[in-house]
């Protein structure tokens, strides 16, 4: 038992080391050392979110509700960054990293986790900076319940990572996955809750939209941000179950892929 604990702790420390090494390497290969370097990590998503927020704020009348449009756009588009880019980072992530897998301790899971961690950090920093910016400019009221915001965000990140960990290993087994994901991501985008609140939809549409896991996390996040302005509809248990099932499918796929990897 003591030996098992000892082995587990050592494995954990190796994995922590490997993921850190991959994380740092990923920053350098993706952003380089030129101009603002790794700041692109969150400047890029910030530009996206700013653009969308500006656009939606300008079109405020279209929505015709008393929703605060700026925090609505900010939460909506920030959350999209949490799920849409993650599978893009895990799809076909193994071939360019094959030379690193020469080192026994660099495993498929580590490559995925380091890339996803980078996505989460980038999206989170972008969300936090923009929130602080808008709040200090008086364009957005501070969140009504910060803990709910944090928890909603965490759930969205968990859901995005689980989905990416399912899609990534699948893409190693079939090239179709890559082809299908891009149109699928476009289709999910309008359904993910970024551009609507569930309450505003007809009852019939609500039923179907609530099958999409991201909707629940986003509704919860918005409840934390400006919950007094609308009635949030969510079921985080459902979201957690769907995410966990995706994660398990992903880990099972990864076992198969990891056995077949042939480093260069």
């Amino acid at each position, binding site marked *: 038992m003591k030996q098992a604990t000892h*082995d587990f702790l*050592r494995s954990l*420390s*190796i994995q922590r*080391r*490997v993921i*850190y*090494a991959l994380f*740092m*390497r990923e920053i*350098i*290969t993706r952003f380089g050392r030129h101009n603002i370097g790794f700041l692109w990590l969150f400047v890029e998503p910030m530009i996206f979110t700013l653009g969308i927020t500006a656009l939606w704020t300008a079109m405020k009348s279209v929505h015709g509700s008393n929703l605060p449009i700026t925090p609505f756009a900010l939460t909506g588009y920030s959350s999209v960054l949490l799920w849409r880019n993650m599978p893009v980072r895990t799809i076909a992530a193994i071939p360019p990293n094959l*030379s*690193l*897998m*020469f*080192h*026994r*301790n*660099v495993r498929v899971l580590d490559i995925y986790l380091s890339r996803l961690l980078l996505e989460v950090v980038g999206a989170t920093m972008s969300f936090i900076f923009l929130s602080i910016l808008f709040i200090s400019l008086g364009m957005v009221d501070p969140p009504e319940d910060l803990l709910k915001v944090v928890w909603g965000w965490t759930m969205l990140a968990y859901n995005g990572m689980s989905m990416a960990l399912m899609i990534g290993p699948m893409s190693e087994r079939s090239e179709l996955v890559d082809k299908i994901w891009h149109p699928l991501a476009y289709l999910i985008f309008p359904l993910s809750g970024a551009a609507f609140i569930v309450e505003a939809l007809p009852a019939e549409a609500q039923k179907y939209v609530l099958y999409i896991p991201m909707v629940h996390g986003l509704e919860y996040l918005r409840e934390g941000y400006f919950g007094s302005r609308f009635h949030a509809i969510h079921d985080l248990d459902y979201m957690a179950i769907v995410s966990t099932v995706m994660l398990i499918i992903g880990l099972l796929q990864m076992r198969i892929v*990891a*056995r*077949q*990897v*042939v*480093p*260069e």
Partner: protein
Amino acid sequence: MDAVLRSPADGLTGSQDPDSRAVSMKDVEKTYPIHHGSVTVFTGVNIDIRFGEKVGILGRNGAGKSTLIRLISGTEQPTRGKVTRTMSVSWPLALGGGFQGSLTGIDNVRFISRIYGLDPAQAIDYVKDFSELGKYMNEPVKVYSNGMRARLAFAISMVVDFECFLIDEVIAVGDQRFREKCQTELFERRADRAMIVISHDPDFVRTHCDRAVVIHDKRLHEFPALDEAYSFYHEHIA
């Protein structure tokens, strides 16, 4: 200029008793998928290599020598059977493997130090000194010549204090002087370690190995002495 950068002996399981340090393969089989069906490289491989042993691997081109070394290192997983490591085993020291071409020499050293838990600053100093790459350490590895790449590869692999080195034809690189330097670094300074060597040069194997195995017809043939291994090799293969 000694590689004193001791890494936590990872990849180890069980006791640290020196006599039990070994790599062992039990009933190992490796197959690869090909266009139609699959191809078996070898099957029923059983071998134990202990700390301090020097073993040569012989076989014709494509027999599976590099595959065997990759399985021993844990770079690839066996299709069947089990590979157990109770000593720290290097990655296969082969030409070109283990690098990111878009990263500079220094970033590659940094990456490897992080993976193996070494101090990057110390490792960079050692590699700079040993590889004699000078200002090229700040250039991406993809612009290196083959010789430069091999020098970097060798220097990096000397940074981690492995108990078993896997050598895949890598020593035959660089000019005479650098080869000699590598020989000294590996076979003299680390003479107590285990080494598993692939080489088509019989003189090299005879100089550095105590025994050899031959891969032939999907089987691994073990011989206690080099002469027996070579007579089998000449009889069946070349």
